[in-house]
């Protein structure tokens, strides 16, 4: 009887146990393993270690001394930290909207029908993207030099007072950092928006025009809403990038004058690497990290509500 059962062809094949399926696909797991291994070693492990260090007093040698939340308390009371946070947020909320606005304007212009030389302009605007920010900063230092620079020559030519850009007022230095960041990154934004514009079906425009919409109305009612996915994608990516801003202020001003361009990353670098205050710096790193994640989550939530 058991023989007969065994010989009967199976009608319902039981799903194989998971470990067997996994074993069968060992090669696929091997293909994706390098990422997860390297993430564990170079991402998760440092993260756990940072958590431990952030609760300790440690200067890189000897035993760690557990101090509880002391480092976090010190960091929250540190006036320089607050200033670097304000600076970074200032840079972000000036750079983000202006960067998106300028890029959309130029993408729309470059997307005009029968525009000769479109490819040349597109390439030129993208050139800074392949250039090292260190090199860009060197060139900008000379362009904005107080006595020998082109910018002050131009201002004098217009009958204006020359400005002490990098070592003068706080806002002059901030302006240079902002201009440099735009100069390096706007070409990439333009490309993203051009890609977005070219994915819009021409029929939608035709339908809007047949309904008698003016060019302005077409832009506000058709183009802009259809670009929203790109705008949100860019907002999230650029926010993460701007919270990491380091090279530009490090090279241009070293954070000065009087801390006006010191960003979170620069502060973290000065604390942790310059001052070997590993405990404080780790606590500070965690606080910035949570802030970045929180901002990103809010942005994603807003995006969901907006586009649905």
């Amino acid at each position, binding site marked *: 009887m058991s023989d007969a059962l065994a010989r009967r062809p199976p009608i319902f094949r039981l799903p194989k146990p*998971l470990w067997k*399926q996994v074993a069968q696909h060992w*090669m*696929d*797991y091997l*293909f*994706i393993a*390098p*990422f997860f291994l*390297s*993430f564990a*070693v*170079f*991402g998760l492990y*440092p*993260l756990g*270690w940072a958590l431990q*260090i952030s609760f300790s007093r440690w200067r*890189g040698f000897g035993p760690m001394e557990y101090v509880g939340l002391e480092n976090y308390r010190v960091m929250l009371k540190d006036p320089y930290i607050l200033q670097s946070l304000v600076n970074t947020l200032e840079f972000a909320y000036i750079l983000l909207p202006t960067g998106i606005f300028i890029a959309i304007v*130029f993408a729309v*212009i470059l997307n*005009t029908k029968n*525009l000769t030389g479109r490819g040349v*302009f*597109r*390439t*030129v*605007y993208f*050139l800074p993207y*392949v*250039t*090292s920010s*260190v*090199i860009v900063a060197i*060139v900008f230092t*000379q362009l904005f030099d107080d006595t020998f*620079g*082109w910018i002050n020559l131009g201002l004098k030519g217009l009958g204006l007072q020359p400005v002490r850009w990098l070592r003068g007022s706080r806002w002059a230095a901030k302006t240079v950092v902002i201009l440099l960041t735009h*100069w390096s990154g706007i*070409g*990439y934004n333009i*490309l993203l928006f051009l890609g*977005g514009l*070219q994915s819009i079906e021409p029929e939608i425009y035709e339908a809007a025009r047949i309904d008698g919409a003016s060019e302005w109305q077409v832009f506000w009612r058709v183009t802009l809403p259809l670009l929203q*996915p790109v705008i949100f994608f860019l907002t999230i990516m650029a926010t993460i990038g701007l*919270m*990491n801003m380091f090279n530009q202020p490090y090279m241009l001003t070293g954070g000065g004058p009087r801390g006006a361009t010191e960003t979170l*990353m620069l502060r*973290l670098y000065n604390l*942790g*690497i310059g001052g070997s205050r*590993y405990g404080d*710096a*780790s606590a500070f*790193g*965690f606080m*910035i*990290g949570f802030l*970045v*994640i929180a901002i990103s989550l809010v942005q994603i939530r807003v995006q969901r509500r907006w586009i649905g």
Partner: protein
Amino acid sequence: MSVASSRRRQWSILIPRIVSRVFLYILLTVFAIVFLFPFYDMFIGSFMQDSDLFSSKPLLWPQGGFDITSYRQLFAELGYGRPLINTFYLAIVRTIGTLFFAALAGYAFAKRRFPGRDKLFFAMLATMMLPTQATLIPWYLLMVKVLKWSDTYWPFWIPAWASAFGIFWMRQYIAASVPDEMLEAATIDGCSAFGAFVRVVLPVVTPGLSVLGILTFVQSSNLFLGPLLLLSDPDKITAPLALANFKGTTIIAPRYSLMFAGSTLATAPLLIIFFAFQRQLISGIMSGAIKGGA
């Protein structure tokens, strides 16, 4: 009479159109000059003597003729050839590794079926949100104190090879460009998963690989914070770091001609690669926008 009025009507349409075209071109050209001028300034400044660079007015052309002292000084006295070679050595190895692991894992995520595939893919994407700030200090300590990797290039190779962005990029590309039938045919012919990858996937995805390769190469050549933390041996530093050091160590007046010459040499190869591949690169980024955004 009616012909004349219709002609007049034509002109009344044409003239605003021409005016707006001219206005657009002026705008685009001014913007283009803004983008090109710093490159010109860097290039021409590298051939200027200090008397030109620090004259009462900035100059568009070297007054004392083209002067290559800075270039000679860079190589003969400051050993700039070494950082230049280091930069491209670091970048090439980093790029090759990235391409290999990105194609392999991208293929598995795009075309293979295995338990937990989509969850793992999502988990990989989520790791891209992990803020670098939180791990910067322990990453530095891990490299310097645990692995003793300071003044080597391992920190810029091993953690970077299997990059989430690269894998994501290749997954999207392979999913869109490798037909399932080809993979099935290869399996029927007795290819293993890896055999199908080498014989079927790799030949088809070269365009996607080349765009990812150029992006990775450019970004690797321009790395700054990592090398700043870990490289100090003059035989190991990269070009951006060497240039930053020129700026940092000049106590009297910044040696612009020297920095410009070094910058020109470091930028030129990247610009050449960019111009050679700009069409693929630009269309790659533009289509990436649509995929990433939607």
